[in-house]
């Protein structure tokens, strides 16, 4: 298959004509999306625009009704979600997804266990053999500022720390492309600052595609922005281009209930 974006070097992820129909509702409608390597690409749009559904399609948690997804030059449209994750395309969730009953260290160790250790089916071995992963886990947790919480239960962390833990867990998989669904939602100002710094650092060597409502963060962080409305791409470009697009301006004014400020 040849197309403008399939040169393989520039774009990590390309989606073409991505469509998802939920019983008549076109939640995602013919979306084209190309994510450039080592960039931060933001997906914005009012509530219900189809951003989370897009993420679910890209990570195969949902099967597209139509369209193709190419990741690192490979057609991944029909892969299983775990298989995509194993290839380095890893997502986070809109609702914080930590393993609440486990300690902070165990959360990260569980991710390392799959990637580094590879003995996850060993039911006859003592889990003490996982101790060798702890140095790397501690290192990852230091990177997100959680070194003082190693043995705390993840469920007991404040919200912002949970998101940080989620990012550390995701990074433990050494992903090439991170999909972050509203990583800053519900955070206080201090956590927002810390987490957006973290995302910036992460993106120095990796690619980030993120859904975010906090427009000032989107403006400072992202290299490219795609605006979705009612499942379709409304505009795409850098922040200046997008914010002056008449269609986008109109969509903002026409949406009194959305969460922009």
């Amino acid at each position, binding site marked *: 298959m040849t197309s403008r974006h399939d040169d393989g070097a520039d774009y990590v992820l390309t989606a073409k004509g991505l469509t998802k129909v939920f019983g008549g509702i076109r939640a995602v409608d013919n979306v084209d999306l190309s994510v450039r390597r080592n960039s931060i690409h933001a997906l914005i749009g009012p509530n219900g625009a189809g951003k989370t559904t897009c993420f679910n399609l890209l*990570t195969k*948690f949902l099967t597209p009704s139509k369209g193709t997804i190419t990741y690192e030059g490979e057609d991944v449209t029909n892969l*299983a*979600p*775990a*298989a995509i*994750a*194993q290839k380095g395309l*890893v*997502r*986070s*969730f809109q609702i914080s*997804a*930590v*393993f*609440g*009953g*486990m*300690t902070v260290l*165990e959360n990260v*160790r*569980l*991710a390392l*266990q*799959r*990637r580094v*250790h590879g*003995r*996850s*089916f*060993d*039911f*006859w*071995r*003592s*889990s003490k*053999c*996982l101790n060798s992963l702890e140095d790397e886990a501690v290192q990852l947790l230091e990177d997100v500022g959680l070194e*003082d*919480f*190693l*043995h*705390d239960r993840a469920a007991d962390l*404040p919200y912002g720390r949970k998101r940080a833990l989620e990012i550390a*867990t995701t990074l433990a*998989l050494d992903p090439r492309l991170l999909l972050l669904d509203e990583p800053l939602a519900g955070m206080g100002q201090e956590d927002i600052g810390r987490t957006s710094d973290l995302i910036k650092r992460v993106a120095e060597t990796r690619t980030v595609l993120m859904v975010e409502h906090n427009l000032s963060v989107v403006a400072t962080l992202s290299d490219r922005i795609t605006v979705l409305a009612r499942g379709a791409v409304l505009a795409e470009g850098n922040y200046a281009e997008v914010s002056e697009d008449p269609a986008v301006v109109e969509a903002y004014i026409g949406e009194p209930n959305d969460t922009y400020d």
Partner: protein
Amino acid sequence: MSKQAETTNRTTAIHQSRPPSDARARMTRHHMIVFALIGLFVVIAPQFLYPVFVMKLLCFALFAMAFNLMLGFGGLLSFGHAAFFGGAAYAAGYAAKVWGWPPELAIAFAVLVAAVMGAAFGFLAIKSRGIYFAMITLAFAQMVYFYALQAPITGGEDGMQSIPRNALFGLVDMSGDGPFYWMVVVIFIIGVLFMYRVIHSPFGEVLKGIRENEPRMISLGYQVQRYKLLTFVISAALSGLAGGTKALVFHLASLVDVHWTMSGEVVLMTLIGGMGTIFGPIVGATVIVTMQNYLANLGSLVLIIQGAVFIVCVLTFREGIVGVIAKWLKTRL
């Protein structure tokens, strides 16, 4: 949170967290104590209880633990575990009676049969969830039941009777309850230790993760269906260990062992004892088996009492007996 509070919090966190978890060592110590108590019980029990009764207890405790591995640790509610328990009982009986195999081989054969059944049923059932999963496992178990009812080799309504306990390794006489008791004890201990290891293995960690947050495990690249299937197979195999042993204890494999009420009973034992706890199923099995034993002369009233106990348990302590005790002691048992 104020800056100052934040700072004090951080320092206490350092003190709490730097020495690799004390809590875990404490928990392990608790487990060792319980293991010691169980060991003590099985050694002195024949002094004041009928060996056959204790052996029955141990078989059902093993069965409930195997079931709990699926429900409590795998998050899978099977309503067809009688198929593995009863199927294995027939398998062990057949091997001992028709082929004249010694008990260790007859039981090993029973485990194998149950594991193969578990792999087959699990493969077909694992894709469905919740109540559908329970229904499918029930349907499979009913197939096994009707096979046992009709097939010429199972003895139909009468069951497979006078199953012999041949000599252990072809050498040691096992026909008396005295020596066989110790074989059952060894089987029980091996089963319990094996289960303990599974729960505390890398595989067990993955199960914990799936139970806590399955979508997140998928997004971390775990193929959760495969882990569930392996859980199913291990659980079925251990149910087979219990069923095969039970057939030799009573010299009998019968329709009761494959009937759906047996599947229900093991659910009951697990819930009463505490699902997702390590020792709960042992306690649950003890309660139910003791009740059945001592209230046997009340006939079908036993079922009503059993139901009442179950309702009381579910209403008053949802975590089960051991779950509640663990909560008191602030530990995991």
